[in-house]
């Protein structure tokens, strides 16, 4: 496996830093411009969730390079409050922050694989993967 690169999310500007790093990695692997934008936007949403709800956390990127599959995997981890109702946050238009609501269902649509684990009082872990077409 390839080495991971991680970005800490603590300040608002880290959201920009995370999506720039993710985009650079995506470009290197060979994603086209549309998928680069999708990946960068998904990172932006995940990083903002960490910043808004958990205050700090981490996003780690990993290049997946199998014989017939190439892609980028990202894992967003925080030790924040966790998500009380996971099925609710996956509904379109649901938001506790006032008006955005595109968040997680949007990320799921932007990426090819999406996995959400959350425990109230402990934190949230979201893994998302995009494959090069």
């Amino acid at each position, binding site marked *: 496996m390839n080495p991971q690169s991680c970005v800490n999310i603590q300040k*608002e*500007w880290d*959201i*920009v830093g995370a*999506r*720039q790093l993710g*985009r650079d990695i995506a470009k290197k692997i060979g994603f086209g*411009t*549309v998928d*680069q*934008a*999708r990946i*960068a*936007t998904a990172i*932006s*949403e995940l990083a*903002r969730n960490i910043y808004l709800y958990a205050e700090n956390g981490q996003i780690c990127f990993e290049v997946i390079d199998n014989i017939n599959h190439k892609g980028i995997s990202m894992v967003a981890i925080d030790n924040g409050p966790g998500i009380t109702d996971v099925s609710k946050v996956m509904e*379109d*238009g649901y938001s506790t922050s006032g*008006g*955005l*609501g*595109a*968040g997680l*269902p*949007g990320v799921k*649509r*932007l990426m090819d694989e999406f996995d959400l684990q959350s425990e109230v009082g402990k934190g949230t872990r979201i893994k998302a993967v995009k494959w090069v077409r």
Partner: protein
Amino acid sequence: MRIPILKLHNYLLISIQTEIDDNTAIQFQEDLLSKIHQSGATGVVIDLTSVDIIDSFIAKVLGDVVTMSDLMGAKVVLTGIQPAVAMTLIDLGIHLKNVPTALDLEQGLIKLYQELGE
């Protein structure tokens, strides 16, 4: 970081050239509204040709600034949204339905001329 706002006759022109973070977006919203107030501009073009990411937050700020300007009496047109950005916005579930758009700056200005009749 601040986004420059240029005045041209009754119009304000903005070309967003930098990566927009949340604070820059909010600052821009305030700056644009006070510039409309000061200048009495009736039309605004925000050109997004160089913007390669619009996430849900930036989209909300842009959509809001269009509505806010409208409340003040200025018409805003967003121009130059890249193909990748348009596709990403729809994936995100953001349709910006009531936001006037045009292909590029030139078409944006034509749209303003037509709608404002100047």
